[in-house]
């Protein structure tokens, strides 16, 4: 019982801390990639407390709900966007032998299903805001979810097939180094589709600020908007953690896997998070039709090919 409580507290702490770290890293990495310095004042040393200051600012703001908005849905949406990512973290293993809050037998299935729920938050926000731009953004979110969930699930099921289990701990346990070339296509497809599901640039068509203001989040301000922002960074953490566990061997490092497994996991998550930020800085936003084309014309066939490759090799060497 105590063990569960401690683990839950650790997950809550990670959920509070990791997105902020990723957010701060995004501020600084993006700035330096553009030849700037980024935040330099908050907290004294290189603006380390910038996101804390942002949080304080958001908390002080007025809580505005448009008159025509669907009040309950409007108020609920930020929570629906944020909480699923917390739930996914519960089943993500950070080390071998039960270093996970809940070792679910169908962990992969659970993680993907709950991650999909997070997108519902954005759709709810778009629908409930009583704003045409929000509605357009919400519809784009929905379309994006439809297109990218498919290759993501295909890529994930390829790994599940290779490991012969749906348990996330089981998959990481089965992982061998030769999975890297074997599942490479699947890994790329999973990561790219995950980025699209998080609506991160270059897949941020739903919040395209130059055409639909801020998409589903147009009418939000203050703490509710902060929750949406937090959900985005929590989503990055969850996506990177899932990619780590599924495709990069999770806690498996060069040495001391049992004792330092959590460190290897964290390290891989941060490297992937850096990649997410790097992609964001480097590429311009894709157009809606390009976005759909990438999913249906490239990612789905690629993930199917990966599925076939996995199946053939699995049967051939079993």
């Amino acid at each position, binding site marked *: 019982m105590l063990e569960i409580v401690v683990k839950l507290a650790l997950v809550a702490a990670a959920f509070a801390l990791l997105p902020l770290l990723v957010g701060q890293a995004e501020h600084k*990495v993006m*700035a*330096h*990639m*553009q*030849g*700037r*310095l980024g935040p*330099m004042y908050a907290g004294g040393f290189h603006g380390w407390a910038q996101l804390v200051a942002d949080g304080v600012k958001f908390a002080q703001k007025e809580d505005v709900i448009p008159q025509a908005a669907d009040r309950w849905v409007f108020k609920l949406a930020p929570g629906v966007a944020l909480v699923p990512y917390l739930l996914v973290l519960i089943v993500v293993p950070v080390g071998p032998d039960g270093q996970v809050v809940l070792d679910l037998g169908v962990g992969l299935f659970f993680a993907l299903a709950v991650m999909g729920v997070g997108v519902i938050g954005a759709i709810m926000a778009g629908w409930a805001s009583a704003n045409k731009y929000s509605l357009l953004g919400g519809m784009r979110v929905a379309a994006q979810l439809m297109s990218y969930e498919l290759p993501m699930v295909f890529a994930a099921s390829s790994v599940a097939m290779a490991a012969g289990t749906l348990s996330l701990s089981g998959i990481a346990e089965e992982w061998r180094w030769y999975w890297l070339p074997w599942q490479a296509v699947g890994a790329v497809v999973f990561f790219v589709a995950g980025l699209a599901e998080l609506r991160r640039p270059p897949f941020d068509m739903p919040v395209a600020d130059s055409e639909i203001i801020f998409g589903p989040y147009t009418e939000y301000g203050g703490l509710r908007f902060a929750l949406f922002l937090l959900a985005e960074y929590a989503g990055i953490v969850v996506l990177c953690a899932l990619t780590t566990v599924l495709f990069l061997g999770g806690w498996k490092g060069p040495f001391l896997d049992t004792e330092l497994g959590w460190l290897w996991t964290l390290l891989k998550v941060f490297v992937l998070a850096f990649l997410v930020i*790097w*992609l964001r*800085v*480097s*590429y311009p936003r894709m157009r809606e039709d390009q976005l759909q084309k990438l999913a249906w014309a490239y990612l789905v066939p690629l993930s199917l090919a990966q599925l076939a490759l996995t199946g053939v090799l699995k049967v051939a060497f079993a």
Partner: protein
Amino acid sequence: MGRVGRLPGSGLAKGLAVTLRTMTRRSITRQYPEVQPDLAPRSRGVIALLEENCTVCMLCARECPDWCIYIDSHKETLPAEGGGRARTRNVLDRFAIDFALCMYCGICIEACPFDALFWSPEFEYAEYDINELTHEKDRLREWMWTVPPPQAHDPGAEPPKEVAAAEKAATRPKRTPGEPRTPGEPRTPGGPRTPGGST
């Protein structure tokens, strides 16, 4: 499809390389209030007045294209000394430059025949009210302390006009006896030289 001889996705890789390379270089941001900027020599920050040199000739105020220099003065009669007659001289009462009008052309500084006006690189004199940008002579005199010494000449440049004239005078054959420097003393041309040291 892509052009022949180019790998698909090489453009994507190039984009990533650009951002990564930029990240490893020093950022170009200047931390201005904490770190003072490195201004170019002869920066035009503000016009300083060396009040002691001003003779109220009014040339600067007359040459100023936007008439932003205000000068007031009165005449003072000095009592006669010895057998001479009484002399008058101009006393400066007010010298003000309206930096809201000034366009920093520097014509007043060029026009001043008595070296009373100078460029100072000092630029931090913003005000909340446009009227407060008219600065009086005491403030302009204070800025004199921020005027840097003249920039050194480039190596190999022609010597300053004053030095050249003085040297020409020094090489003239007819000289009064007891002259410390012998005529025709060899000189290395060029090199920075202060005007005071050669005459």
